[in-house]
C-alpha cells in the first residue's frame, strides 16, 4: 500500500482557489459576453452570455465541438472581434472601452497564435518573428539574437531564411508560435497551436509553454481539440457548446467527473476505457466471457486514491482480474482514469470484491458483454 496525500507539491483545491482570488485582478474576466455574426444568410449567434474567469498564471483550456465559438471567444479577448453585449476585462482593462492607443499597449502584452498561422508571405521565418520585435527598444543585433533564440526554441534554427511558402504546415505553425512569444507577452492566446504538429514537436512545444508559464508566470489560453494537450498543460478547462459555456472547472475535476454528455464524450475519446464499448458492440473475442466471469469498469473519480487495488482484491478475495484495457494517467499529480477488467472467481467473492471497491470510492460499472 502506498497511501499518500498528493498535497505536498500539487495545490489543494482550496489553495488554488485562494491564489485565484489574488490573481483575479490581473487575469481575464469575461462576463455575459454575447457576439453575433451578421452574414449573407442572416445572423449567427457565435457566443451567448459567456462567463469565464481566468486568473493570472492559469493555463486555461477551451474545448468544444468544431464551430462552437472557441476562436471567436479568444478573438474577443484581444479585441480583434467586437462584441454585442457583456464585458471582457484583461489585466484590469475593459477591452471594449480602450482607446486605440491603449488597445495597442494591451495587445503588446498578449501573444496570439492564429488557427490559420497568418504568417507574412514576404518575410522569412526569421523576419516573421522579428516583426513582433520591431517596435521594441531592442537594437537590430539584439533582435537578431532574440529571433534566433526563439527559432531555436521551436526547433526551426535551420529554416530561419525560408519563406512561409517553403515551409511545411507544422513548420509554419512553429514560426507563428515563436512570433507570439517574441514580445515576452504576459498572456498567450493559442488557437489550435499544435494541431499541425507531430507528437514529438507538440510535446516539446508544450514543454516550452509550461516552462514559460512556470518561469515567467505567463497566463495561457489554449484552444485545442487534443485532450492530451489539455491533460498535459491546463489547470483549468472550459467546455463551450453552441456558443455557451456548459462546463468549467479544474482540469482534474472536469476529466474525472464530466457532467454534460458532450464533455463525457470528449473525455471518453481520451481514454481507451471507452473502447470497451466498441469491443462489446463488435463482440470481440477478447471479452468473450466464460461462465462466472464479470466484466467491470473501474474509475478513479477522486484525487485521493492511490492504492494497490488489483493486488488487494486478488489476494483478499482470491479472484483473478485480467486487465483488458487500462488508462491511468497522472493529472495534477493525481492518478486519473481507470481499468476495465474481467473478474474470474467464485460469484460471492466477486460480489465481495465489488463491494470493497465501491467503498474505496472507486467508480464501478458492471458491463454486459
Amino acid at each position, binding site marked *: 500500500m502506498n497511501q499518500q496525500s498528493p498535497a505536498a507539491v500539487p495545490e489543494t483545491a482550496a489553495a488554488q482557489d485562494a491564489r485565484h482570488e489574488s490573481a483575479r485582478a490581473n487575469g481575464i474576466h469575461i462576463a455575459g459576453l454575447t457576439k453575433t455574426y451578421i452574414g449573407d444568410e442572416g445572423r449567427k449567434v457565435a457566443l451567448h452570455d459567456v462567463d469565464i474567469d481566468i486568473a493570472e498564471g492559469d493555463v486555461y483550456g477551451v474545448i468544444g465541438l468544431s464551430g462552437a465559438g472557441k476562436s471567436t471567444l479568444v478573438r474577443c479577448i484581444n479585441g480583434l472581434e467586437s462584441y454585442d453585449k457583456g464585458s471582457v476585462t484583461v489585466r484590469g482593462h475593459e477591452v471594449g472601452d480602450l482607446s*486605440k492607443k491603449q488597445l495597442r499597449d494591451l495587445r503588446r502584452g498578449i501573444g496570439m497564435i492564429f488557427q490559420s498561422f497568418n504568417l507574412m508571405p514576404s518575410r522569412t521565418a526569421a523576419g516573421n518573428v522579428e516583426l513582433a520585435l520591431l517596435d521594441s527598444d531592442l537594437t537590430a543585433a539584439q533582435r537578431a539574437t532574440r529571433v534566433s533564440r526563439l527559432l531555436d526554441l521551436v526547433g526551426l534554427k535551420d529554416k530561419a531564411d525560408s519563406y512561409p511558402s517553403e515551409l511545411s504546415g507544422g513548420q509554419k505553425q512553429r514560426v507563428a508560435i515563436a512570433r507570439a512569444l517574441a514580445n515576452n507577452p504576459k498572456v498567450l492566446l493559442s488557437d489550435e497551436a499544435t494541431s499541425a504538429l507531430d507528437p514529438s514537436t507538440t510535446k516539446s512545444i508544450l514543454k516550452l509553454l509550461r516552462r514559460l508559464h512556470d518561469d515567467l508566470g505567463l497566463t495561457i489560453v489554449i484552444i485545442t481539440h487534443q485532450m492530451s494537450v489539455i491533460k498535459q498543460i491546463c489547470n483549468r478547462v472550459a467546455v463551450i457548446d453552441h456558443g455557451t459555456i456548459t462546463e468549467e472547472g479544474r482540469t482534474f475535476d472536469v476529466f474525472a467527473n464530466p457532467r454534460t454528455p458532450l464533455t463525457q464524450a470528449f473525455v471518453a475519446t481520451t481514454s481507451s476505457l471507452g473502447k470497451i464499448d466498441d469491443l462489446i458492440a463488435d463482440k470481440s473475442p477478447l471479452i468473450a466471457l466464460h461462465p462466472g466471469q464479470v466484466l467491470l469498469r473501474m474509475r478513479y473519480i477522486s484525487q485521493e486514491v492511490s492504492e494497490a487495488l488489483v493486488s488487494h482484491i486478488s489476494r483478499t478475495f482470491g479472484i483473478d482480474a485480467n486487465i483488458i484495457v487500462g488508462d491511468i494517467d497522472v493529472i495534477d499529480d493525481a492518478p486519473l482514469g481507470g481499468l476495465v477488467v474481467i473478474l474470474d472467481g467464485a460469484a460471492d467473492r466477486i460480489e465481495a470484491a465489488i463491494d470493497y471497491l465501491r467503498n474505496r470510492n472507486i467508480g464501478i460499472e458492471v458491463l454486459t458483454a
Partner: protein
Amino acid sequence: MTILNSWFPNVAARFPEFIDSIIQTLVMVLVSGLISFVLATLFAVLLTLTANDGLTPNRAVFNVLDKLVNLLRSIPFIILAAALVPVTRAIAGTAIGTRGAIFPLVVGITPFFTRQIQSALAGVDRGLIEAAESLGMSVPRIVRRVYLREAVPSIIRVSVIATVSLIGLTAVVGIVGGGGLGDFAIRYGYQRYMLDATYATIIVLVVLIGIIEFVGRQLVELTEH
C-alpha cells in the same frame, strides 16, 4: 544606318528629332510616373484605411477621395490636359514642353493608378492585418510593414500596367506641345502619312514596353515568395 535609311527614310531624315522624342517620352514617363506613384500610393492607402471595413473608417475622407478619383477619371484626357493649362502654368512655370507635360500627366494617371494600387492593397489577406494588430502595431506601421510590403508584387504588377497606360497618355500631351514619341508618330505618321515614322515609333514603344514588362516580371519574381 543604311537599314535605317532604306527602311525608315523619313525617320532617318529627322533622326535627331526622333531621338529627342524618345528622350522626351522617357523623361515624361519617368518623372510623372514617379510622382503619380507616390501620390497614388498615398491616396490608395487613405482609401483603404478609411473605407467601411478599413482600419480607421472615415466616411467623409473616403467619400471625398473616392468621388475625386472618379471625377478625374471621367474627364477625357485631352480635355483634362487643356483645362489644366492655367494650373500647369502656375505650378510648372510653363504649360508647354516636357516640363509642362508632367503636371497634366500626373493628374491624368494618378486616379487610375490609385484604383490599381487600391485593388493591390485589397489583395492583402485580412488575417495578416489581424496578426499585425494582435502584435499591437500602430496603423502607420501596419501600412508600411504589412499593407505596402505584402502588396509589393501586386503593386509592381499594377505599376507596369499604369506605366504602359501612362505612355499612352504621353502621346496625347504631345499634341498639346509636350513632344515625345506619340507626338512624333501623330505628326509624321498620322498627319503626313509617313508610315515608316509610325512603324519606327511602334517598334521603339514595343521595345520600351517589353523592357518595362520584363523588369516588372523580374521584380515580381524577386519579391514574391
